[in-house]
């Protein structure tokens, strides 16, 4: 809002007022220069000619209740005075921010709806300081937020931050193996199903441990396509309707193996260490690859 606008509005030296209506219906009379500090109010006055009288009061957004409005007015009243030094403003701001968390949130919301950017920045920074370093439970506590995520959804962030290419490879390998096991289950007879299940898990274990696989009807075609999958980036691994108990067990094996893999590498200091890739030969035995890792510290 420019100087010339103010001049046009206020040709005399007498004070003029803007009329504003809060969500609860009460109309307030506010000094013009204070009210005009809020861009949203400024907009209404200049472009829509509103606020000049009680009947034409500007309706404030719903998020601005009376208490918040009075706080915002205090803020505007202080800051719209041009003569204040930066230090003065800073001290005022720090004192102003000392309020309980709930009010801080309400104030942020109200200031945001009035487009009062400096105040939004101030409150946002204060809230950011509160959030920093806290655990999700603590954050939920402080802000009275509902605990509405499923367990699975809560675990997802961990997967993101532990994006280890070795684990991704293992996950893909396992997902493909699971699909394959499901295929085999469907083809076998009903009576034999139980045994098939158990052996599948053992197969899987020994397969991963590199001791070779008892070749119980693994189809070569599936395995070679598995090999392609592993070295294709971004291969999707959907865990489709696998028995959840088996899935959990498989998940634990992946973690175990990853851990064992890690500890082996740490133990073998002094020898030449190279990251190991597994691939599957046509007959189901594993083959160790020595390949280029992605650089990670």
């Amino acid at each position, binding site marked *: 809002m420019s100087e010339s606008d103010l001049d046009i509005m206020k040709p005399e030296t007498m004070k003029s007022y803007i009329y504003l209506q809060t969500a609860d219906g009460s109309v307030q009379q506010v000094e013009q220069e204070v009210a005009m500090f809020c861009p949203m109010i400024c907009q209404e006055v200049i472009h829509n000619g509103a606020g000049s009288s009680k009947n034409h009061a500007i309706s404030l957004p719903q998020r601005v209740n009376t208490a918040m409005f009075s706080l915002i007015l205090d803020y505007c009243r202080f800051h719209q005075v041009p003569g204040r030094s930066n230090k003065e403003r800073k001290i005022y701001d720090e004192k102003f921010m000392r309020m309980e968390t709930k009010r801080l949130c309400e104030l942020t919301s109200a200031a945001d709806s009035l487009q009062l950017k400096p105040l939004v920045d101030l409150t946002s920074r204060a809230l950011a300081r509160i959030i920093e370093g806290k655990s999700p439970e603590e954050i939920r506590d402080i802000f009275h937020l509902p605990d509405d995520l499923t367990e699975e959804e809560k675990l997802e962030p961990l997967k993101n931050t532990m994006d280890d290419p070795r684990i991704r490879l293992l996950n893909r390998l396992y997902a493909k193996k699971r699909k394959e096991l499901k295929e085999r289950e469907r083809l076998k007879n009903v009576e034999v199903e139980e045994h098939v299940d158990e052996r599948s898990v053992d197969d899987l274990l020994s397969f991963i441990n590199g001791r070779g696989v008892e070749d119980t009807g693994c189809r070569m075609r599936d395995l070679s396509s598995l090999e392609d999958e592993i070295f294709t980036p971004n291969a999707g691994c959907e865990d489709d309707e696998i028995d959840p108990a088996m899935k959990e067990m498989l998940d634990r094996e992946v973690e175990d193996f990853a851990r064992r893999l890690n500890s082996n590498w740490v133990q073998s200091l002094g020898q030449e260490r190279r990251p190991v890739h597994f691939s599957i030969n046509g007959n189901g035995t594993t083959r160790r690859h020595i390949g280029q890792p*992605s650089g990670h510290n």
Partner: protein
Amino acid sequence: MNNLPEDCIAKILSLTSPRDVCRSSAVSRCFRSAADSDHVWNHFLPSEFPEDFRAPEGLPTKKHLFFSLVHNPLLLHGSQLSFSLERSTGNKCYMMAARALNITWGHDQRYWQWISLPDARFKEVAALKMVWWLDITGKINVSLLSDNTLYAAYLVFRWNLDPYGFRQPVEASLVLAGTEHDDVQPSMVSLMQNPGSEQGQRAELRSDDWYEVQLGHFFKRRGDMGEIEMSLKETKRPFEKKGLIVHGIEIRPVLP
């Protein structure tokens, strides 16, 4: 907090840190939505990328891009410079390949050999056969670094089967090119991890199974220009050095 619009929450989260934002995605549904938004992760990505940077394809969100750059360094400058992000702040990290360094006598096969190792980030590393004048220098333009960040430079190296001549400390320095070199005293660093070594930096083992030793540090302020020159030298003692394998020089932020 329930009544705050999502973009307000996103703004608040962008004022925290990548770690805090990741934790926030486990708070509640509305927090998660804000925490995963591009607005927040854009804030943590560098505002300026190096000239020949191309974002990897197939990454659906800015959050994916952020973590891709943290875990998978990109090769720039003809594959002689690796670029990645430091995960707790999003500050830029670099590693210069040995080929990008100035190694005195490096072109002479009697003294240095260029070999390929499978666990190196770059195609070639420099393997020292034997040399008397050991002088390894690297230069990097400070405009590549993140503003208002304290950086340290490290020589990344390892040993072949029988290193020799490195029991004594060697000279390391980091200077802003153009400053008076006479004023700057190089620091003495030890490439070995001898216990009972005197003062000064010692080599440490990294998580990628290479060693590193700090050459110096530098605080990048906004508007800083020019190059920093990082070097490791041993030219004063009249005996030969053998067996050093140089991966490169890494420049990364110092974490508090």
